[in-house]
């Protein structure tokens, strides 16, 4: 039941792995920001759908997918058999 003592400082590779986890945790927050940003655009003059909106949203979408794809392999390899935690 005793908590495993975790080392205070890490070697380079585990350090990078943890920062990758941080990045992967931050990604949806960044996504929320980008997806809610257009709420600030609404003005009386923009009553109808414009192609710019479509392109913006799909760009954000592709960015999120790309970032997640870039993170995924590192996150997966980071899972040791011990289920090491942050």
């Amino acid at each position, binding site marked *: 039941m005793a908590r*495993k003592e975790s080392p205070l400082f890490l070697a380079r590779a585990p350090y990078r792995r943890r920062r990758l986890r941080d990045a992967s945790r931050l990604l949806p927050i960044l996504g929320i920001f980008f997806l809610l940003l257009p709420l600030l655009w609404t003005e009386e003059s923009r009553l109808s759908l*414009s192609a710019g909106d479509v392109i913006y949203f799909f760009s954000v979408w592709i960015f999120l997918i790309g970032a997640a794809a870039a993170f995924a392999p590192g996150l997966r390899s980071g899972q040791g058999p011990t289920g090491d935690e942050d």
Partner: protein
Amino acid sequence: MPFKLLVVACLLYVAFLFAVAFIVERRAQAGRLGWLRSPLVYTLSLSIYSTAWTFYGAVGYAARSGLEFLTIYFGPTLVFVGWWWLLRKLVRIGRQYRVTSIADLISSRFGKSNTLGVIVTIIAVVATTPYIALQLQSVVLSFGVFASATPDGQAPLDAGQTAIWVAVGLAFFTILFGTRNLDAREQHHGIVTAIAVEAVVKLVALLAVGIFVVWGIAGGVGDVIARIDAADLSAWQVQPGRWAGLIFLSAAAVITLPRMFQVMVVENDDEGQLARASWAFPLYLMLMSLFIVPIAVVGLDQLPAGSNPDMFVLTLPLAEGQGGLAMLAFLGGFSSATSMVIVEAIALATMISNHVVIPLWLRLRPAAAADDLRSVVLMARRVAIAAVLALGYGYYQVSGGSAALAAIGLIAFLGVAQVLPALLGGLFWRGATRTGAILGLVTGFVVWAFTSFLPSFGPGAALSDAVFTQGLFGLAWLRPQALFGTDTMDPMIHALFWSMTLNVIAFCLGSLLTFPGPVERLQGAAFVNVFEGTVGPERWSKGQVDPEALLTMAQRILGEEAALSLFQTAARDQGKDSFLPDPTPAFLNQLEAQLSGTVGAATAHAMISQLVGRATVTVEDLMAVASESAQIMEYSAKLEAREAELTRTAGALREANEKLMQLSIQKDAFLSQISHELRTPMTSIRAFSEILTEGDLPPEMVVKYGRIIHEEAKRLTRLLDDLLDLSVLENGTVQLSLGLASLQQMLDTALIAARQTRPERSFIIHRDLPSEAIYLKTDADRLTQVFINLISNARKYCDASQPELRIAVRQRAGRVTVDFIDNGKGIPKDSQSLVFEKFARLTDANRAGGAGLGLAICREIMTNLGGSVAYLPGQGGAAFRVTVPLRLEKLAA
């Protein structure tokens, strides 16, 4: 295109899916799944998120509300790219505790409470029935599109008949592959693979239609962009509340929808699949929605006003005479509808059988231990599947299939999203309790039903007009779409806001105010800390149970062979050569885990406790374990401290031992040295006294020999004096006569006394008299003795032709240092540490009667005076520094 051909194509497609599912099941049984368990299949199976609602409905949604349809995909995208937050934990728990459904997860987390299982099951069934109806409706609608386009006037099936045929067909397929066997882990490889195939079909179909629309009908990307800008898509305006609310809602739904939970958690094999899906699934969704806006815009442009925008995916190709493409699109839509219905039905049937039917059965027939529960479970699932589809069909008939697809979908989303607070709370908050979860779920469900579900039937249907306008019981603040007077909100957001808020409040209050039972607390710790390995004590204390009864029960659920092999393995692990292991807590845990993979945690727990007879652990047990482990920790801390102390002691002993050894060696050396020193003068005394005793020597010889004997005797005496002095000093028994004395005077005395040593040499003495004007409280005689010794040494050993001696005095912080520095060669570095040892003489060249004890005595004197004498290297000659305290207090003896 002929309607018959459509039916034939449809049947062929279904037959193909049958074949896929069948082959995969065969391979799964043979244990040869291989690539079928790859992340790709997993990702594709997740695509049941996009149902016919997406396939057809998204275009209609876009035509009606512009880009708002995207929110339905942004939620899941955020959840999946942020998988490290939640999904990873969810999947890990699902695998570790063999979770069979979301109801099972909630019930298991909150103390294996079947009440909770039932509540979640009811919510899931009520919320998703309209959703299933929606799928039937979309299939019927799409058939209708083809039928109306049939030129040969052949009377097609009417809508009701189509719906019933589709429902029956789906029920058949689902029962066939969803309830073939009771898997220990409730996985359905055949169906998952068939769904993956369907996922490919719907993606290809939608992309094909999209590409045809963009490059076939419109003139490429530029033209489409121009059309979008020109189109007036119902005056689309971002409504902040709806936009953010729907993103949240879809994010919640992708986690809590029973079918999503089934493919995402229950059918998951390893976390690698999830890592891949974290980006591949959002990519799938993105591709699915890539052409939605172009299709909507072009559809609005091309097709006659009043066409149903929900069917643009079919009607656009048909209007352009692309029969084949329309057929592909139809199959895509058909795939979307069927895959969703199949998985949803399986998930719901699992819940119904595990949380409703089996507990009831066990309660009604507790004595029927002999009958095979497996067949009951399977039959329950089959009936449940049929019932779920019948419900969906019933809803379709009642609602008349008129409402827009999107609205029904959102209502279903909000219904299942009510599970979210209990789920998140259960996963991340150990303080969440069963009562809190029940209160939250019931509150959320009631509010949802009142504000969203019942009003969806329209005014005057489920709720009377009076309730709509005047509120429940005539209370104005209880109007279903304006709770507490909030009548300016969008109805959907209104329902979302109030149901989730009240749900969370009830959940938190209930959790804060109640005390969880022991099993609940165990499960809470196990779920929240799932990554920290197994926690908590065994869930079963050693019970009085007949292993044979356990075996009988296990056979009823797992089947004879599986149960026997499980028991045999356990018995072998215990070192027994039989089929019946001892009912140890560990074995009971293992058995319970196996059973819960089939009938759910609550039922498995109930069945075992029925046999074991006592309600597992108590709060006292938990406390006992906690204090036990605290004791263990304290004990080990003590042990550690003791070990450290032992190590220290051992180190000290070793040091002492080394010192003793060294002293012994020194003593031996000292003895041999001293015998040598004593022997030399003795030898000459003996020799000369012998000569004297022989007589008849000339008198001058007698005088000479007598003086030699005298000199040698003096030397002996001096040596013995020194030795005595040294031993007194070393023992610390020396009596110091402390008093104030002038340093200058002491140095004067010393210089005069030292002049006797090699008086023929003329030394130049450098002194700084003002600096020597210091009065010391010390033993002046002893200190002078040290000075004499040092100056004599300089006189003796300084080998410069013009010998000089510099005496430098410095006072610092209560200590005085006196340096004696000559201009000779100095002492070689490796001998510097030796000069203070007894009998250490570096050379015999300038031997002046000393026994080599001078510096050793000096060192001892200085130690007794509370100071030190040391060799000072790097001064250009031999240099010694004497350090004395300015005021020597009496040392404690």
